[in-house]
């Protein structure tokens, strides 16, 4: 502030009195007259708040009047919706007293956008919380995790029977599916990234097309080939294969996107140092993209765990714990949730919701892990990786030093020292 004020004064003195040396004249410092009000820097004014809450109160009461006195309406949902619509209109009217038309539109648009976002969040929160509340009765009993349903009838209390068979089945099926898809998917993603050309473009197009394959059709394909033609039983293996067909294109696509984010400068530097392609991929491309690849795999796993329709067609259903993926039907969590709800018995439905709650927890945990790992971009290191990297370069430095001393024992100065 001071410099801005002084500069015209300085120039004026230099031009008027050319002989005298330039002098800085400071404006007189006058104490602020009286009590100054602190200026509001925020954009929210009292009138805005009044308009908003006034519109809300007015619409709520008007709708109440409409509901109770004038028209024979009932229902909470209708009340909320009517209040909202009326509130937006009233808010626009109230704002138009003070503001011009573009501002009124901007306010109304802001209200609508915020409401839509809040609605989406509310729906998601409601679904998640509802599942946990309904499943709570079942999941608080420890037998829910240690017993299966082999000797439990539909009307038996929740202290008997559980979802062990479904939890074990889900782990086995998803484990096998990931054992197939992760190596194959990563190799294919590396192929799409490293060997560009007409053929890999074709593969990419086919993979993109396969992401459009509805999951139930993947299940039907496995049912028709493995089970009906090749004679494999309805089993965990068949279910895992169906899951693999569903998840493979998703993992390939996600990994392909991640690999494309690896900075070209890094790989080119590696090639410039003379390293062959396989070493560049192994030492530069894959480590740089590690976080993103892990996220791709984890989100693929979350998807595989939640898939119901491929499993419905291929796994069969059982109440026994089956750890043999090749023989006999196998249960899984989504399938258990689905089949228990269909029965309509209160306790069975609680078990179904319990299975869904366990499923949701697993998906949430996987999701959070994926987020934490994938939160950083390609090539950004965690503090631990950074420490390890620093230690490695210090080791290299020591090695160079030793080599240098061994080669020229008489020479005291070191190029690395002068180089900094």
């Amino acid at each position, binding site marked *: 502030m001071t410099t801005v004020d002084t500069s015209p004064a300085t120039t004026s003195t230099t031009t008027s009195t050319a002989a005298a040396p330039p002098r800085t004249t400071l404006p007189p410092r006058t104490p602020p007259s009286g009590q100054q009000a602190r200026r509001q820097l925020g954009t929210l004014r009292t009138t805005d708040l009044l308009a908003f809450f006034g519109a809300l109160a007015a619409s709520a009461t008007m709708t109440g009047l409409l509901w109770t006195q004038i028209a024979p309406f009932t229902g909470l949902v209708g009340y909320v919706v009517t209040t909202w619509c009326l509130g937006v209109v009233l808010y626009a009217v109230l704002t138009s007293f003070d503001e011009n038309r573009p501002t009124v539109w901007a306010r109304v648009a802001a209200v609508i956008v915020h409401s839509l976002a809040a609605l989406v969040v509310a729906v998601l929160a409601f679904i998640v919380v509802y599942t946990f509340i309904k499943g709570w009765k079942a999941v608080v009993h420890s037998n829910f995790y240690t017993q299966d349903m082999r000797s439990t009838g539909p009307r038996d209390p929740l202290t008997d029977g559980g979802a062990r068979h479904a939890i074990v089945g889900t782990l086995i099926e998803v484990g096998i599916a990931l054992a197939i898809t992760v190596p194959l998917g990563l190799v294919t993603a590396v192929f799409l990234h490293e060997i560009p050309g007409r053929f890999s473009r074709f593969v990419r197009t086919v993979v993109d097309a396969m992401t459009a394959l509805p999951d139930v059709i993947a299940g039907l394909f496995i049912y028709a080939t493995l089970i009906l033609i090749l004679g494999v039983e309805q089993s965990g293996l068949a279910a895992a294969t169906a899951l693999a067909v569903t998840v493979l294109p998703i993992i390939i696509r996600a990994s392909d996107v991640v690999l494309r984010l690896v900075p070209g400068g890094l790989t080119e530097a590696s090639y410039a140092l003379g390293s062959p392609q396989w070493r560049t991929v192994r030492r530069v491309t894959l480590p740089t993209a590690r976080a993103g690849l892990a996220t791709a795999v984890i989100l693929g796993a979350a*998807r595989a765990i939640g898939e119901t329709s491929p499993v419905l067609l291929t796994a069969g259903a059982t109440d026994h714990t089956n750890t043999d993926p090749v023989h006999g039907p196998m249960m899984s969590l*989504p399938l258990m949730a689905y089949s228990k709800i269909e029965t309509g018995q209160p306790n069975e439905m609680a078990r179904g919701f319990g299975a869904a709650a366990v499923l949701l927890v697993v998906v949430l945990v996987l999701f959070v892990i994926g987020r934490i790992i994938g939160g950083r971009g390609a090539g950004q290191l965690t503090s631990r990786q950074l420490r390890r990297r620093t230690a490695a370069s210090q080791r290299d430095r020591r090695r160079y030093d030793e080599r240098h001393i061994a080669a020229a024992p008489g020479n005291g100065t070191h190029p690395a020292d002068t180089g900094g």
Partner: protein
Amino acid sequence: MIDTQEFEPIAPDQGPQVRRSLKANPGPADRFFRGAVRGGGVAVLAIMLLVGSFLAYRGWQALHKAGLSFFTTQDWNPDAGRFGIAAVIVGTVLIAVVAIVVAMPLALGMALYISEYAPGRIKSWMTSTVDLMAAVPSVVYGLWAVTLFEWKADSLSKWISDWFGWIPIFKVDGVKRHDPLASMTRYTSSTFIAGIVVGIMVTPIACAIMRQAFSQAPAGEREGAYALGATRWGMIRSVVLPFGQGAIIGGTMLGLGRALGETIAVVMIISPVFQIRLHVLQNGTSSVSSLIALRYGEASPFGISALMAAGLVLFAFTLGVNFVAASIVARSRSGAVSEV
């Protein structure tokens, strides 16, 4: 001058030069690496083509036998030779259309909120929330819909059909409008309910595409709009929305592709009916994926072929929708930057 004279005589005296090969010799280790990686690509391609061609081959048997009646018959009884997808495909499309009508405004509002209105910390939270919503298994949505939502939304269905029943698609057969004693079960298990639930499920997919495009809207043009005195909504309308137009259409279509193929939630909600029913609020509808999930167990080999034919038609639908969507998203101005 001297240098050039020194080098000049060399070139013409050499005669025709041997064209140098530009192919690099990668060495055995790299050749092995490239072969292995290519092998992975070939394996994936083989699996995908196997799925596609098997589906096409088996589906073709049923299509060939049924002929054009496959697309006009409403019944599903393959072993008696009377089967077709007229009813199920109409049901599928109607469910998907309701889903998109629900999902499009929700996704657009959420995407605009995340990219334009939300302050820093909330922005990343909201992004995670949307991604989480996409990761919630569909069976969870199905459970919620079949135990709670269906019984709450029937009054909404009744309200719509009472007041807008004069529009044919909102009509409900067998119920008099404004009849307070009407049986509410008429309004459950309908296309409308299934469509709303599927719409909630595809909202995050459409939202993710839109959000990405909106956040790439060039900063120079945004600031230009503000400099000309635009309000925030004015800026959104003149910069962000035109810039993200392709993504809005493309994202919505990707959601549509997903909605067409959704299975388990639809199976749980609807009560299957094999006739073309355009009254979206009325009990009973059908979709291709729920047909497959409900009928595979009792199907004869030919019945499986018929189901595959239905699946093939559905796949063709979703494939077409997805490719058009992808090309629209790719062709939109994403990545364009204005010079500041």
